[in-house]
């Protein structure tokens, strides 16, 4: 028995390429489905990754570094209600933990019905009553909530310790009081007690009620209004340290009864992004997959048509020694080539679409480069699947039948 002679792979690919290239308009039509499918897949995944990247960027910047400790209460086994108060130095205790960028305490101050006014109580019109809330914070809180002043400065720990009558106004409170500059050291009155305005708070990332209120140093609120204890500790952590700080903060603040404090931490790092990404990607993947299925059916359909059109070519090839396997191989490779080309063009189109949409949306395009590399091979795999049936049909055509057709 002689050695079985076979077509070399290069010859097979050459034949397939020539067969594909012989009908350029047909090629365009055949690849269209795969181009659309792969482009849809690449751009949807790309846009999914890009979009969820933007979403998580936003979360990362603010929420992911915020930890809040509040005093809580709970029912003890004997039926009594156990409560705890935050210590005055709660912020300092927390600040000692490594991973804390800044911390400060916050409290609402009951001023006994006194109104906040821009002028003394003997205002002749008597009508300018402002229902402005009064709050108290320590110096560190401004930093912890990313406070930005529009003018003036924050009070400092010296004001706090001395119980000075100074105030920082939230921007809305300042508007209502008609104060927009502090260089002339304007005063406001809470009841009949004057306070010097040292700054106006423009923005905060959390606790936006501060913007509506008159903000006193914690020590001032304690000495003038008998504030009992801070209500909450606001902590801004280093990026990625929120989980750790969340687990340590309660013990640091109240070593004797940490379980009585409530600690609010951001979702586990990455879990938010993952959730969003998975949802979006699942949807997009389904859409892209559907488009690919349609593309695959398109290849199968047109390859089948091509087999029928080229029956006499099949007959000829059989007459010059091609076995049925050679015929099947040729059509398979042709449809793999078509799928690969479609995948290549589709990947390019998908990347372009991702970049284009990102530019319009002012996003940073995020695309896993492996996707762009894999896409042509995905196209080839689809070509392989799609070409199997037409190739099998081609291989079962009897040479004498094929040669009779012309």
């Amino acid at each position, binding site marked *: 028995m*002689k050695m*079985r*002679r*076979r*077509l*070399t792979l290069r*010859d097979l690919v050459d*034949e397939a390429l*020539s067969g594909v*290239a*012989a*009908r350029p308009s047909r090629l365009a039509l055949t690849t269209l489905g795969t181009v659309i499918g792969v482009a849809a897949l690449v751009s949807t995944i790309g846009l999914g990754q890009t979009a969820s990247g933007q979403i998580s960027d936003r979360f990362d910047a603010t929420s992911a570094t915020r930890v809040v400790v509040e005093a809580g209460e709970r029912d003890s086994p004997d039926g009594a209600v156990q409560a705890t108060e935050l210590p005055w130095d709660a912020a300092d205790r927390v600040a000692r933990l490594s991973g804390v960028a800044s911390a400060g305490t916050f409290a609402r101050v009951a001023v006994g019905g006194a109104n906040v006014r821009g002028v003394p109580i003997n205002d002749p019109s008597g009508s300018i009553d402002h229902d402005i809330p009064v709050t108290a914070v320590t110096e560190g809180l401004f930093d912890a909530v990313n406070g930005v002043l529009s003018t003036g400065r924050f009070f400092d720990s010296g004001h706090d310790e001395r119980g000075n009558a100074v105030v920082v106004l939230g921007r809305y409170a300042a508007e209502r009081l008609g104060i927009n500059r502090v260089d002339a050291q304007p005063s406001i009155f809470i009841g009949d007690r004057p306070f010097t305005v040292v700054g106006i708070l423009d923005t905060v990332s959390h606790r936006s009620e501060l913007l509506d209120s008159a903000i006193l140093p914690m020590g001032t609120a304690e000495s003038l209004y008998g504030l009992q204890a801070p209500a909450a500790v606001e902590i801004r952590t280093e990026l990625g340290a929120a989980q750790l700080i969340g687990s340590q903060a309660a013990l640091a603040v109240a070593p004797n009864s940490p379980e009585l404090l409530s600690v609010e931490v951001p979702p586990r790092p990455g879990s938010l992004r993952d959730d969003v990404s998975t949802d979006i990607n699942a949807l997009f993947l389904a859409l892209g997959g559907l488009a690919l299925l349609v593309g695959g059916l398109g290849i199968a359909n047109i390859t089948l048509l091509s087999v029928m059109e080229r029956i*006499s*070519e099949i*007959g*000829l*090839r*059989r*007459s*010059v*020694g*091609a*076995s*049925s*396997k*050679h015929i099947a191989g040729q059509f398979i490779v042709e449809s793999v080539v078509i799928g690969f080309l479609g995948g290549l063009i589709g990947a390019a189109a998908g990347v372009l679409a991702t970049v284009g949409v990102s530019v319009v949306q002012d996003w940073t395009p995020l695309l896993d480069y492996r996707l762009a590399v894999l896409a042509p091979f995905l196209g080839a795999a689809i070509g392989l699947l799609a070409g199997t049936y037409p190739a099998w049909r081609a291989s079962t055509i*009897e*040479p*004498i039948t094929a*040669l009779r057709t*012309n």
Partner: protein
Amino acid sequence: MTTTSDASPSPPVVEMVGVGRSFPGPPQVHAVRDVDLAIDRGEYLSIVGPSGSGKSTLLHLLGLLDRPTHGTYRLDGVDVSELSEAHRAELRGERIGFVFQAFHLLPHRSVLENVGLSMLYQRVPRRERVQRSRDALERVGLAHRVDFDPGTLSGGERQRVAIARALVGEPSLLLADEPTGNLDSDNVEAVLDLFDKLHTEGITVAVITHDDHVSARAGRRVRITDGTLSEAAV
């Protein structure tokens, strides 16, 4: 190879004994019945017969494109009836050259590539394929057409390309089915002259035709009527 340089008497190229081919109906057709045919090396044979008499069916059997329903067929002394399809395809590529009435050239492929196609499944190295294709085209007088698209050639030129394709693999047997059926008289002469030339070069040729003028050029004529073969006077 195709020459008869062996000292021992070489077997006939074709040896058919009691070969028949029927197509299961309904109605069943006995296209070829009980044919005994031997073709010696270097012979130039014509097969004549009316339309539907079984000429093409016989040619397909001779060329291993089809299997007989009964009888034995030895090609170059090898009984091919029992061989696997893949093996028959290989033998076909190696030993048989076909020329068809309809030329069967691949469109959009150059004349050279069309000729080279015959060696594609024989694992002849690429470089050698090109060289042999050029030589074959020279043999049929088309050296100046190697890079043409077959679509731009005349009918006679196309058939000569097809003949070059059949020759290039150095077959034991050249089979032509109505090779002049689509040609005008000038081109018929050119093709017949070419067959004469190939015959004198020692190639075994079997030509199917219903044209007496064509069959008259062959050294031996057989007639097939209703599937039954008989020797005929030249």
